């Protein structure tokens, strides 16, 4: 189903039918205090040439994608995007497809979402994946709320301190107005989550662990999950870099009850921080507690395959304040991109790409070490890791920036105890020469 804006003539015709003279008159039932008075201070319309120029100027100001080599991931990753995706996504059936209020009208849209769900469930090793949530951070917050729904009378949830700081902030915002308590779990000296205090927490509904965690470290999810389950608590795994599952065990294999995180890595541009894709999956037994929309496969009266929005009786528009969650929408375009990305690479492609990311970052690690830098945490990592230097890194950082290389993320802002240490990321997009140049600067 296409999205087409109304022309002035169509608006006039519709107003005629309902007997109104203008749009203002149509919306007269909206109280004055809730309406904007006057005209908005918007720039004048531009013709196509000027508009193109304006947008190129804005894009230049951003500079992230083209001019600079950015050795930062921290939740947003630069990966090569197969040309097939841009080509397919330029088709209006995909790009402007909006789920109408009778969703089953749009069988193509529903099938697209269904394929995304299937691929996501397989990637994460889970039984059921939903039609997506806004982003990784809100997916985590929703997973914690889901844990509280399943935990019934339990009132606490815990999150590892190695979960992305922004995600933890969003979870705090979600839980702040409620009576629920959000507990932060400490890290051990190797940058992994320390669960030794878990048994002392009464009424704990769920624990969330990110892997690879914010420091790029692969957590021992199987062992953590075992401890969490032995404690009678739900096990949530979270991720910012799903590509890692091409190489590491996926959440399902590690015993996760809920797996959630960010899907930006899968074919979505970094575009100044968005758009994002919240991936969300769980075990079959928890499906009815899952937030968001879910597309199911069925057969019609003639036995033909078809798709429906399933369990929507639990959504807000029908169940109001009793709804499972207040997510009644999904990231339609981003789910399609991610589905195209996953099917373009396939299982073996994903594995090869993950291996390449891992190998490159191990090479970079080795070069840095050789030149006197120290890798802070003694744990396996995927494509990110924390580095510390003998001397102040700031001047080197500034020098590299002049050469259009953004050398890592200083961690003091997020972890004061790690001030002066840098989080580096290397994906397949970073050439050996760039890594050698950075390592060379460190030595000087």
């Amino acid at each position, binding site marked *: 189903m296409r999205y087409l804006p109304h022309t002035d003539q169509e608006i006039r015709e519709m107003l005629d039918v309902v007997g109104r003279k203008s749009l203002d008159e149509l919306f007269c039932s909206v109280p004055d205090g809730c309406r904007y008075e006057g005209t908005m201070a918007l720039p004048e319309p531009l013709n196509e040439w000027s508009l193109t120029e304006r947008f190129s100027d804005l894009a230049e100001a951003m500079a992230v994608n083209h001019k600079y080599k950015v050795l930062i991931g921290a939740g947003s990753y630069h990966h090569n995007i197969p040309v097939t995706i841009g080509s397919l996504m330029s088709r209006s059936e995909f790009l402007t497809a909006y789920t109408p209020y009778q969703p089953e009208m749009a069988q193509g849209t529903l099938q697209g979402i269904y394929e995304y769900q299937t691929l996501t469930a397989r990637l994460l090793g889970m039984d059921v994946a939903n039609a997506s949530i806004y982003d990784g951070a809100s997916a985590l917050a929703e997973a914690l709320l889901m844990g509280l729904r399943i935990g019934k009378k339990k009132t606490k949830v815990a999150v590892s301190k190695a979960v992305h700081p922004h995600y933890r902030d969003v979870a705090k915002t979600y839980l702040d107005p409620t009576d629920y308590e959000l507990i932060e779990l400490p890290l051990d000296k190797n940058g992994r989550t320390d669960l030794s205090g878990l048994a002392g927490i009464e009424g704990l509904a769920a624990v969330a662990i990110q892997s690879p965690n914010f420091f790029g470290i692969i957590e021992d999810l199987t062992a953590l999950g075992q401890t969490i389950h032995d404690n009678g608590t739900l096990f949530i795994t979270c991720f910012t870099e799903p590509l890692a599952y091409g190489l590491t065990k996926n959440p399902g294999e590690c015993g996760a009850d809920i797996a959630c995180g960010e899907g930006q890595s899968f074919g979505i541009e970094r575009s100044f921080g968005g758009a994002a894709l919240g991936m969300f999956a769980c075990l079959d037994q928890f499906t009815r507690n899952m937030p968001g929309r879910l597309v199911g496969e069925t057969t019609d009266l003639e036995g033909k395959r078809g798709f429906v929005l399933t369990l929507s009786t*639990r959504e807000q528009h029908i169940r109001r304040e009793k709804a499972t969650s207040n997510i009644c929408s999904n990231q339609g375009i981003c789910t399609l991109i991610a589905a195209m990305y996953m099917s373009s690479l396939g299982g073996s492609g994903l594995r090869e790409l993950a291996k390449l990311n891992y190998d490159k970052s191990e090479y970079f690690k080795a070069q840095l070490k050789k030149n006197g830098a120290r890798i802070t945490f003694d744990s396996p990592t995927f494509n990110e890791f924390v580095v510390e230097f003998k001397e102040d890194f700031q001047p080197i950082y500034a020098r590299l920036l002049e050469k259009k290389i953004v050398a890592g993320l200083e961690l003091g802002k997020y972890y004061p105890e790690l001030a002066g240490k840098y989080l580096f990321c290397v994906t397949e997009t970073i050439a050996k020469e760039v890594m050698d140049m950075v390592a060379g600067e460190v030595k000087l």
Partner: protein
Amino acid sequence: MKELSELIFKEGLRYTNDHEWVTEEGDTLKIGVSDYAQDQMGDIVYVELPDVGTTFQKGEEFGTLESVKAVSELYLPISGEVVAVNDDLGDSPELINQDPYTNWIIEIKPSDPGELDQLLTVADYRELLRG
């Protein structure tokens, strides 16, 4: 949907304003939903049941009924502890549509059996639906 005259009102049960029924079996009570309730809901596709051993206060939500068009809460009419749930409803929730009075939902041990007398008689319930 059924007319009032077509609805089945089973004699000898006690009813609630939320269209549930209660019947005494020894020192426990069985609880289900009325013919009116199942008829209003339409095809029931899922019954969410509590864990055996859970204690609920009178009026507390103990589960949900989900039909193709709605999800409704089930409220416990009498305080007590859940001693059994009807597991047949897990695979065959449609049993409630087929016979809402035989297919009970949960069995409880009441903490105050006297609360039973506060519920509606079949005549009261019929009156409630007549409006």
